[in-house]
């Protein structure tokens, strides 16, 4: 048992720091730090910067142009990037679709789509959830009917994050209705410029238009866009979800949030002293910090086990639940730290005047972040579903 980083890992951390210091646009990181929305161009720019360095596809094999980082390298990158307030890497093409294509896609599909993910030519979004289905993927209703060389797709997807920027969507569709709900599902790649695809924004409770509904009406999809076999989509979907979950704990986000929280608490006045010196608030911060110190180690342990070929099973669910709990607790404390300045809805600008709010705390959008991150315990498999999974292993396998 050895908790220290190797020489190589320490050198790698220096590389990452240097890279971030040199290439991260301060205006962009300032927006990330204060919780403002990035433009599409800003996100694409960051992808291009990482791609130029060969660091975009961190867990892809080198044969496909990936960095093939170890679990510890990915953890180090995540930690440094979050602390430097780098934009997050948009995961839909890189971390969600790509592993499925590499495992189940045809050679043609791999050759066609993977380079376009790296280059940024395609912006992918995810068509999993449907209205009325929630965390229950097996009940999905979007239908795809074979018609010659095409599937004709009808249905509706929802909670499609950043769908407003995407030109491609990977969808789970029902190709057989005569079988058990988990069977009869297929995995289709759909060009969003095809007639019949319509994207409608959903405004979240914090005012951000971050997710979308995607309506599919008689959308004709070439059969070569079917991944793997027809009616085997459930298998690919589960594989995708497993891969989606390797960074599920969000330790880097938590650490960046904790840093920001501490900065706020050092600045805020609490009855004549800095809030950070208030024993009760200091204890609340310390509480999330000690939880996070343990979570970071849990994350490394599980990544190490996964790296050694032991698949993360319920451990990923555990990381999801605890990671979202901690992140939400940090958001909650940040909101509380700024006191009445949590009340302005869009605290970055005073309307009309275009002047910044004269908030000495530079609170930024703490309330927006608090509200927005209520989603992290709901989306991506609600925490209740994760607990079901854990309990099933804990109780179902016995007795």
């Amino acid at each position, binding site marked *: 048992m050895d908790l220290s980083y190797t020489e190589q890992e320490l050198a790698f951390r220096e590389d990452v720091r240097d890279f971030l210091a040199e290439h991260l646009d301060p205006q962009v990181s300032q927006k990330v730090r204060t919780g403002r929305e990035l433009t599409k161009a800003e996100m694409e720019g960051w992808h291009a910067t990482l791609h130029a360095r060969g660091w975009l596809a961190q867990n892809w094999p080198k044969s496909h142009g990936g960095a093939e980082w170890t679990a510890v390298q990915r953890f180090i990158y995540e930690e440094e990037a979050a602390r430097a307030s780098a934009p997050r890497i948009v995961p839909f093409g890189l971390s969600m679709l790509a592993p499925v294509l590499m495992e189940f896609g045809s050679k043609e599909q791999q050759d066609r789509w993977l380079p376009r993910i790296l280059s940024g030519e395609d912006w992918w979004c995810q068509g999993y959830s449907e209205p009325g289905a929630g965390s229950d993927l097996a009940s999905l209703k979007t239908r795809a009917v074979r018609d010659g060389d095409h599937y004709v797709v009808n249905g509706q997807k929802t909670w499609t994050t950043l769908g407003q920027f995407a030109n491609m969507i990977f969808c789970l569709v029902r190709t057989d209705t005569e079988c058990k709900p988990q069977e009869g599902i297929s995995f289709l790649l759909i060009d969003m410029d095809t007639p019949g695809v319509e994207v409608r924004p959903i405004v979240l409770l914090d005012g951000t238009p971050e997710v979308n509904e995607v309506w599919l009406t008689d959308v004709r999809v070439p059969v070569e866009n079917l991944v793997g076999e027809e009616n085997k989509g459930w298998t690919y979907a589960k594989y995708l979800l497993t891969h989606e979950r390797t960074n599920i704990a969000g330790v880097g986000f938590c650490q960046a949030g904790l840093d920001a929280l501490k900065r706020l608490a050092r600045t805020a006045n609490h*009855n004549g002293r800095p809030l950070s010196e208030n024993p009760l608030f200091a204890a609340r911060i310390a509480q999330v910090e000690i939880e996070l110190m343990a979570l970071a180690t849990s994350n490394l342990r599980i990544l190490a086990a996964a790296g050694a070929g032991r698949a993360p099973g319920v451990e990923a669910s555990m990381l999801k639940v605890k990671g979202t709990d901690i992140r939400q607790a940090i958001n909650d404390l940040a909101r509380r730290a700024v006191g009445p300045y949590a009340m302005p809805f869009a605290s970055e600008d005073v309307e009309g005047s275009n002047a910044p709010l004269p908030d000495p705390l530079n609170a930024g959008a703490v309330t927006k972040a608090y509200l927005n991150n209520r989603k992290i315990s*709901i989306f991506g498999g609600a925490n209740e579903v994760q607990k079901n999974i854990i309990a099933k292993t804990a109780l179902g396998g016995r007795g």
Partner: protein
Amino acid sequence: MNFDLSDERQMLSDTLRRFLADKYSSTLRNEVLSDPAGLSREIWSQLAELGVIGALFDEAQGGFGGAGGDIAVVFEELGRAGVVEPVLDTAVLAGGIIADLGNADQQALVEQIIAGELHVALAHGEPEARYDLPYVTCRAAEDAEGIRLEGRKAVVVNAEASEYLIVSAREAGGLRDWEGISLFLVPRDTAGLVLQGYALASRGRAAEVVLDGVTLTPEMRLGTAGQGGDALTKAMARSAVAQMAETLGAMHTACEMTQDYLMTRRQFGKPLGSFQALQHRVAEMLIEMEQARSATINALGHLDGPDRDRQISAAKALMGQIGKRIAEESIQMHGGIAMTQEYDLAHFAKRIIMGDHRFGDSDYHLERFIDLSAA
């Protein structure tokens, strides 16, 4: 000991609930929320006509209520319906201070408030004050030309729609001294008074207020020079009760929406409400609702008693905690739909959470409770 509503209050409660059920749809609320005024003048007049504002003042002040029980009845209904109009700010907070300290001329403003003809906002908090009540850096200095105010006030709710601001400023004493804080009635169009307005997360609007050489006559002082602290504390106590009752009402609606949703929405082939893990969480929410109601009752029942501030701090600390739990649990148990702005729960959840940021949050009051218990 008697926990029943008086007949008058029961009638007020019923009338207000019916009126709001009829008139105050979520469509209307969304219109008001997106209106640059931050409130509906029409609804405001109707609330005044119904006696809602008058119920918040006692007879000597021209009203017909004014006790903790009256405040609680009105605000529970306003919270339950998600009313965004600034009844708390104009009537309880600013109106309460005028009624408390005002001379005969100033009291005339209370009549206008009760009639629904006037808005007044309290400009007390400052950018660095957080919840620290005596933290007043704004200065008031009297010379031959009058009283000059200099300084900055933060998050002044409903400032833009108000004809007057009540501004706290220091005439004596050091930062955080209670002694030396004066209150002034400042017409909004006074030269040197600059508002920078913005929308609030949960309702209405607020403004940052810059006082740059605002000059007043001494008649605009409310009460005795340097002696504004008690009236401020009292107004904060009454406003805290109003805020708690509003939050209680909003929590009630959030719980009801959650219960309804769980019974109708199906997942994995069953109504969500048939999942025991969710059942127990609903049970826990309802247990907390009982606690929240009792906390509010404790606060309103001690509003005129010697233990007022300690009781209010106990109650507000608990309300903040319960509010957080109920808002978050309501969202979580709804799932994705509750994350959308157009679904009504989002408004109630924000309302509940933001209630903790007014008049001191749960930690502020927990510490104040400890201090006052030790005293």
